[in-house]
């Protein structure tokens, strides 16, 4: 009996061997992925959410047979990605954000036809499908444009069409809306959702560091950081875990070196995030109970800090990430870059 899962991983890990110093020959290891256990159901639109360098792309490379895992195993479409690559490959396709695949001298239509040949799609059917997808993505008038003459956004649309063209059983989209403007991103998200909904055998794994994208699109989301999956559930369920906390956004006059420590010391305050802005500060308070807001306001007043705006808001996936990691995704990227440098 066929498995209900399109993607399964168990204790999946990948360690890169880095050569730090060529003269001394010192080898350094980078753990890109560690102990990842995932089960993605057939027909599911599954999101991997995490900052740059979290391990999302490494996981996709393993699942698309481009990289061998160091530990554990993974199955895609029911086949082992390491031992049954020949069976996995006809079932999958992948599109990465910002990729420059294809050949600049060929037109958009020719590039797509070429990739269709690598999947054994007969030319007549390939052209029909290419033309339909070009129309669906608003690219029909660029069919005969050389791909080297396309803008970054239009090129990315061509790449996305390449992924859908072969109608794979499992499609991997790695940051697909990178480089796309707001309108084009919305179109792509709409198409992605419809594509999965049209056929219950299709599965799509999407990586993104755009919270809204994951929230809007995905049936389930796994939050990943430093190569480990920290949480995995529906966006609603992940956010629901936070609903016991009240989140307040305050815009205040500059904190002037006060920092977040006096607020974090207050009873009922779980977490405080401070973002200095031009001429004022934005502070987010995660409160165990709403009554703790009185203490926050009192502290601000005592320190002569004016409240410019106060807003209670619903939790987002960003808040879930902050709760799990202790930092926002952008802060986590900065820390990670700092460590790498």
């Amino acid at each position: 009996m066929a498995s209900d899962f399109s993607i399964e991983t168990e204790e999946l890990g990948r360690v890169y061997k880095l050569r730090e110093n060529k003269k001394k020959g010192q080898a350094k290891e980078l753990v890109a992925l560690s102990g990842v256990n995932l089960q993605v159901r057939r027909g599911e639109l599954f999101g991997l959410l995490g900052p740059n360098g979290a391990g999302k792309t490494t996981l996709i490379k393993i699942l698309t047979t481009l990289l061998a895992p160091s530990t554990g195993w993974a199955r895609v479409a029911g086949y082992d990605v390491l031992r049954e690559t020949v069976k996995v490959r006809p079932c999958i396709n992948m599109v990465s954000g910002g990729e420059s695949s294809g050949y600049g001298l060929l037109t958009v239509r020719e590039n797509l036809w070429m990739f269709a040949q690598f999947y054994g799609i007969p030319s007549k059917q390939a052209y029909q499908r290419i033309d339909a997808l070009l129309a669906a993505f608003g690219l029909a008038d660029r069919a005969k444009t050389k791909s080297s003459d396309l803008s970054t956004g239009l090129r990315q649309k061509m790449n996305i069409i390449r992924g859908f063209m072969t109608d794979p059983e499992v499609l991997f989209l790695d940051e697909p809306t990178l480089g796309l403007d707001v309108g084009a991103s919305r179109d792509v998200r709409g198409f992605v959702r419809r594509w999965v909904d049209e056929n219950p055998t299709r599965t799509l794994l999407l990586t993104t560091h755009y919270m809204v994208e994951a929230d809007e699109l995905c049936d389930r989301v796994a939050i990943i950081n430093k190569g480990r999956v920290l949480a995995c559930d529906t966006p609603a369920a992940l956010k629901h875990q936070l609903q016991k906390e009240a989140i307040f956004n305050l815009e205040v006059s500059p904190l002037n070196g006060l920092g977040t420590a006096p607020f974090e010391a207050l009873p009922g305050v779980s977490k405080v995030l401070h973002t200095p802005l031009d001429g004022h500060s934005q502070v987010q308070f995660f409160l165990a109970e709403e009554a703790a807001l009185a203490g926050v306001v009192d502290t601000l007043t005592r320190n002569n800090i004016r409240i410019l705006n106060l807003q209670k808001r619903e939790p987002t996936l960003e808040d879930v990430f902050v709760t799990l990691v202790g930092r926002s995704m952008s802060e986590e990227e900065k820390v990670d870059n700092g460590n790498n440098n």
Partner: protein
Amino acid sequence: METTIKKNSGWRLFLQTIMGRAYPRVVGMQRGKSWIFFDTFLPLLSVSAYVFVYRALGAPEEYVGFVIVGGAMTAFWMNILWSMSSQLYWEKETGNLGLFILSPAHLMAILLGMAIGGLVATALRAGAIILVGSLIFHVQYAVTNLLQLLAVFLLSMVALYGMGMMTSSLFLLLSREAWHIANLAQEPVYLVSGFYFPVKNLNFWVAACASLIPLTLGLDAMRQLVFPSGALLGFLSVPVEIGALTVLSVVFLVGARLLLGKMERLAIREGRLTESRR
């Protein structure tokens, strides 16, 4: 958008892959007209230099023909170096290699497509060099055996592109040094393969070692078959050279098949298919 898509597998997929990968070479490369200048006019300049040197030295007139044919064949050697051997490195850099590998297409078919496309496109350039060079320098040809000439050319190409396919799998593991290695292989081969002079003039063992590069024997046999004095200047007899080229063709094609599979597995294990982390 929901449609059932027919997808071929087996030999049909193999053939489709060859056609798909050959297409950018045959059509795409001819699309930019700059090749007429860079791939025909510029090689003719270096060929002309040799022609004038030979004429100044009073060398037999056949030597002019040797140079024209050699000049045309350099196009194939350049194609092997820059568009076959090191191609997988460039494909890796542009992100195509990962897409080739995760597709159901066999990498051998991708390489065959590259080879056939490159061969067709380069034959056009080589033909242009021979035509223009022969007209300018009034080269006289006297083909003694057309069948053997065709056999030599085809076998040389099969062996040469087979060698290109085999070395390309080695380049799969290289990063930027691929460019340096290709550069390193370019000029010495012009010398030891006798592109502009009969290879018989070299030491026997040097010529024998150079014969591992199929163009050495191919050029030598072609000169013997199209110029009256060619047979006198031949390194080995034409039938022996045809036999050697046949062996080289088989060795390189089988070698490419075996090495490619091994290198692909190694590259997947070491994570070298899509990134430069080492």
